[in-house]
């Protein structure tokens, strides 16, 4: 029986995090919540809801929080690690689909795909930006994916050991794909459903974030 650990990165999510953690725990999964320097008591709420909580002393960004969670999950003996969003837009039922896809296909990465599954209440602007991100990823990594900025993904222990995120902020979603491509390990896309709410839309990426991502990726490409 594989030990599955769900890693959730959260920043000021006290309003919704209890519900998200309880739902995942009720699904039979162990949760590691990385509180990325929240000031609204997110860590306490998540701890009470049943998560193992690790707290960044300062806000570093989602990429940094996910890397912390992945490292802790590996140290805790996880066989499979699933990254899951804190804002309630992911569905716990999709985790089982990702795990099954890893096993069935003997893959090391299962990447959630909202365009193969469903994207409830997604705005037209977001759809357009995600399409642009997909084209950009194809050009820069050669990976033929159709949903490149989906936070719902599963990876085996072997896969996770190839991931070392250095992009602290939102560019980590592209960086992880670069690292998957570089690892040469097998990956598959799995249909998942993302349900957008007014809350998740407000917390989600904006047009300016995409320019920040491009600048971050460019700056990173100049570094050793």
């Amino acid at each position, binding site marked *: 029986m594989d030990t599955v650990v769900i890693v959730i990165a959260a920043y000021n999510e006290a309003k919704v995090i209890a519900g998200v953690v309880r739902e995942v725990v009720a699904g039979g999964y162990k949760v590691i919540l990385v509180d990325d320097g929240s000031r609204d008591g997110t860590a306490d709420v998540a701890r009470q809801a049943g998560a193992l909580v690790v707290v960044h002393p*300062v806000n570093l960004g989602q990429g940094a929080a996910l890397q*912390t969670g992945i490292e802790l999950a590996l140290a805790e003996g996880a066989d499979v690690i699933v990254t899951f969003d804190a804002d309630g837009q992911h569905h716990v039922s999709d985790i089982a689909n990702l795990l099954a896809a890893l096993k069935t296909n003997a893959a090391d990465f299962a990447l959630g795909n909202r365009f193969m599954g469903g994207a409830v209440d997604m705005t037209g602007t977001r759809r357009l930006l995600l399409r642009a991100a997909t084209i950009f990823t194809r050009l820069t990594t050669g990976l033929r994916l159709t949903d490149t900025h989906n936070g719902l993904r599963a990876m085996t222990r072997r896969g996770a050991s190839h991931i070392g995120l250095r992009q602290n902020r939102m560019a980590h979603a592209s960086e992880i794909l670069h690292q998957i491509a570089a690892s040469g390990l097998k990956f598959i896309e799995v249909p998942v459903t993302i349900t957008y709410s007014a809350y998740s839309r407000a917390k989600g990426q904006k047009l300016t974030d995409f320019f920040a991502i491009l600048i971050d990726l460019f700056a990173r490409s*100049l*570094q050793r």
Partner: protein
Amino acid sequence: MIARIFLTVLLSGVLLYAWKEYRLSPVVAFLSVLASCWGLYFVWVPEHATELAHLAGVGRGVDLILYTWVVISLILLLNLHLKLRAQMETITLLARSIALTNARK
């Protein structure tokens, strides 16, 4: 002549800086070397700067030298940005180490 020597010293300083920064970012170092060599050439052969400026449509050769200086400044600014990123990575490793140590207590 004084201006030439002054600019030569400044641009040579940029060259030394580029050599020192090679380890952080070879691309930025290469661009700095390119821009400062370009600048040194114009300082010592200004008539070529004027000819090239006419060709490029920027007017006087001194304008072209000024533009070269602006390019060097931008490259140095980019290098500063990369240094800040490198520092942020160090802070991240430190914060992560603290967080993971506290989580295991």
